[in-house]
C-alpha cells in the first residue's frame, strides 16, 4: 500500500474542471509547438534541397554566402578537383530563376530551376531518378508537387511556358519551398537548361556550361573527407570554397547558420514561443491556485493534524507535474495535426523530431513547476490555527 495519491485525486475529482485544465495546458503546448515549429520550418526548409544533394564534398563560389546569392564558379575547377586522390566523381549543378506561366491564370511567377546531367546521380530523389529518360527529351522538366498553389496545377502532362519558351512537365517530385526557391522548384536536364537559359534576352543573365552553381564531389569510401577538403582548399585557386557536406562546418550547417544569424526569424519566433510559455504559466497558475483556494480549509486541516509544509508543497508540485504530462499529450497530438496542415499550405518543412518534442516537454514542465511554486505559497502561508472558528 502506498501514500494516498491526493494530488491526482484532487485534480481529477471534478471531471469538467479537469478537462478544462488539460485543455489549458494543451493550448499553451500548442502555442509553443506552433511558434517553434514555424521557426524550425523556416530554418529546416532552407536546407531541404541541400540534404538531397548526393555528394560528400561541395565546391561553390567563394562569394556564394547562401543559396540566395546567384554566384557561379568556373567548371574547370571541378575537373581540377577530379584529379585529386580520393575523388571518385565530380558533378555540376546549375541553378537559375525563371518565370513560370500558370497555365490556368496565365500569370507569371518566379520559380527556381535546378539542372544537371540526368545520367549522374546528383539528386537523391527517387521520383527523379525514375524519370531519367523523360528528362532527356527536349523542353521537358519535372515539377515540385509541394510548390505553392500560385503555380497552378502541378501534374504530369502540363504544357506551359517557362522563360517564354514552351515546356512540358513529365513528372512530379516532392521537395518543398524555401526563401531562395520562389514559388517552387523545377528539375531539368543540363541540355534543356542550356536550351532555356543560353540565349535569353539582353536584360537577363546568360548561362552556359562554363559556370557551375554547385559542384558535388563523390569521395572514395577509403578517403578521409576532412583531409581531402583540406587538400582541395589548398590545391584549388582561391575563387572557390571547398566544404564538407555534413558536420558542424559543413555546407548544410553553414546555410542554416546564415539564416539563423542574419535574419530576425529566430528573434520573432522565440519571442512568440516565450509568450506561449508565459500564457501557459498564467493558465496553470490559475488552475493550481483555484485548487488550493477551493481546498484551503482541507489543506489547513492537514497542517493542523501534523502534515508539514514540505508535504503540501509536494502535493501542489505533483499536481503541476501531472498537469504537464496530461496536458502535453493532447497538445502534442493537435500540434502534429497543425504541422501537417502547415506543411501542406506553405510547402515549408515542418519536422517534429524527438529532440524537439523533448524540448517542448521540458518547457511545459518548467512552466507548470513555476506556476506550482507560485500557487503553493498560499498553502505554505496558511495558518492552521485559522481552521478553528471557521
Amino acid at each position, binding site marked *: *500500500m*502506498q*501514500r*494516498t495519491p*491526493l494530488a491526482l*485525486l*484532487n485534480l*481529477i*475529482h471534478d471531471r469538467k474542471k479537469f478537462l478544462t485544465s488539460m485543455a489549458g495546458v494543451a493550448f499553451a503546448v500548442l502555442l509553443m509547438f506552433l511558434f517553434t515549429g514555424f521557426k524550425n520550418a523556416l530554418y529546416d526548409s532552407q536546407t531541404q534541397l541541400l540534404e538531397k544533394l548526393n555528394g560528400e564534398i561541395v565546391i561553390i563560389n567563394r562569394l556564394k554566402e547562401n543559396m540566395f546569392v546567384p554566384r557561379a564558379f568556373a567548371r574547370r575547377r571541378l575537373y581540377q578537383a577530379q584529379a585529386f586522390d580520393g575523388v571518385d566523381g565530380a558533378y555540376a549543378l546549375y541553378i537559375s530563376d525563371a518565370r513560370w506561366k500558370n497555365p490556368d491564370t496565365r500569370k507569371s511567377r518566379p520559380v527556381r530551376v535546378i539542372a544537371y546531367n540526368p545520367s549522374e546521380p546528383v539528386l537523391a530523389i527517387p521520383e527523379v531518378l525514375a524519370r531519367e529518360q523523360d528528362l532527356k527529351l527536349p523542353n521537358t522538366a519535372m515539377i515540385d508537387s509541394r510548390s505553392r498553389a500560385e503555380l497552378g496545377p502541378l501534374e504530369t502532362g502540363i504544357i506551359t511556358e517557362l522563360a517564354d519558351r514552351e515546356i512540358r512537365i513529365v513528372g512530379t517530385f516532392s521537395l518543398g519551398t524555401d526563401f531562395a526557391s520562389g514559388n517552387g522548384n523545377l528539375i531539368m536536364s543540363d541540355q534543356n537548361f542550356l536550351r532555356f537559359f543560353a540565349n535569353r534576352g539582353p536584360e537577363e543573365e546568360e548561362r552556359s556550361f562554363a559556370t557551375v552553381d554547385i559542384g558535388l564531389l563523390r569521395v572514395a569510401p577509403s578517403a578521409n573527407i576532412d583531409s581531402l577538403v583540406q587538400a582541395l582548399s589548398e590545391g584549388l585557386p582561391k575563387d572557390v570554397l571547398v566544404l564538407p557536406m555534413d558536420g558542424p562546418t559543413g555546407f548544410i550547417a553553414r546555410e542554416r547558420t546564415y539564416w539563423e544569424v542574419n535574419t530576425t526569424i529566430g528573434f520573432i519566433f522565440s519571442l512568440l514561443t516565450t509568450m506561449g510559455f508565459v500564457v501557459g504559466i498564467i493558465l496553470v497558475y490559475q488552475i493550481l491556485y483555484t485548487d488550493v483556494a477551493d*481546498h484551503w*480549509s*482541507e489543506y*489547513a*486541516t*492537514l*497542517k*493542523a*493534524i*501534523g*502534515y*508539514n509544509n514540505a508535504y503540501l508543497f509536494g502535493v501542489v508540485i505533483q499536481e503541476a507535474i501531472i498537469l504537464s504530462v496530461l496536458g502535453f499529450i493532447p497538445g502534442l497530438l493537435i500540434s502534429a495535426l497543425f504541422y501537417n496542415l502547415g506543411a501542406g499550405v506553405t510547402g515549408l518543412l515542418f519536422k517534429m523530431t524527438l529532440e524537439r518534442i523533448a524540448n517542448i516537454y521540458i518547457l511545459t514542465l518548467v512552466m507548470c513547476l513555476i506556476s506550482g511554486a507560485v500557487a503553493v505559497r498560499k498553502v505554505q502561508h496558511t*495558518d*492552521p*490555527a485559522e*481552521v*478553528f*472558528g*471557521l
Partner: protein
Amino acid sequence: MSSVPRSTASSSPPAAAEASIQVRDLNYFFGRGDLRKQVLYTISLDLYPGQIVIMTGPSGSGKTTLLTLIGALRSAQEGSLRVLGQELVGLGNRQLVEIRRNIGFIFQAHNLFESLTAAQNVEMAVELTGNFRGKRKQAVDILGQVGLAERADYKPAQLSGGQKQRVAIARALVNQPQLILADEPTAALDKQSGRDVVTLMQHLAQERGCTILMVTHDNRILDVADRIINLVDGRLESDESPQQFVDSHTPKALDQKMFLM
C-alpha cells in the same frame, strides 16, 4: 445509537493520574508594539485523562485562542503549557508540528477532501504515523466504530452532514490520540446527529481514557461534560460540574430539560 450512562461529574483528579494538560499562569498577546493586546490572562488549568471538558464563554473571550494554544497551533508566549507531558512554551514551528500529530482535531466544518473516500480521508491521518501497510484496515475499523463501516468507500458528497462529521471524528481518533480538541463539533448538525456525535465522543473517551476538550455554544450537549470551564474576557471565570454550572447560571436562560439524565 444508545445514550451511554455518564460517569459522576467531578473536577477532582482521578487518583495518581498525571494531568494530560497542565496550564500555569498562561498569558497570550496578539499583535506587537503599540497594537499589542492581551487576550488571555494568567490561565491555570489541569485536565486529566478520561475527562470531557467543555469550554464555554462569549465570543471574543479567548476560548478558541486557548484551544489553538493547547493544540500547538500557535506558539505559547508566557507562562507554562504542558501538553501530554511536553512543555510547549518556547518550541519552534517544527516541534509544534510533531506535537500536533499526537492530538486529534475535530472542527466545526468537517474539512474532508471531496475527492477522497471516507476511508481515504481517514487514511491521510494514518499515513502520518508511517503505517502504510495497515492503513486501510485501521481506517475501516475506526469507521466501523463510528457506525460507518458500510460507507467506507463513499465520497463526502454521498454522506449526510452527521455522517461527514463522524468521518471527521474517525480521522481525529484513528491514531488513538490521548488528547482530542473539538471546536463546535455539533454546530452544523441537527439535534439528533449532534447528539449521536457527542455520545460517540463520550463513549470513546471512556473506552480509551483520553482527554476531550470541546469548545461549544450548543446547550443541548452540555450534559456529556465532566467539567465546564467558563472563559470571560480572557480570564477563567468558573470551573465546575455541569450541575453546578446549571445552578450558577440563571435557570431561565438554559433549557433545564437538556440536563435531565
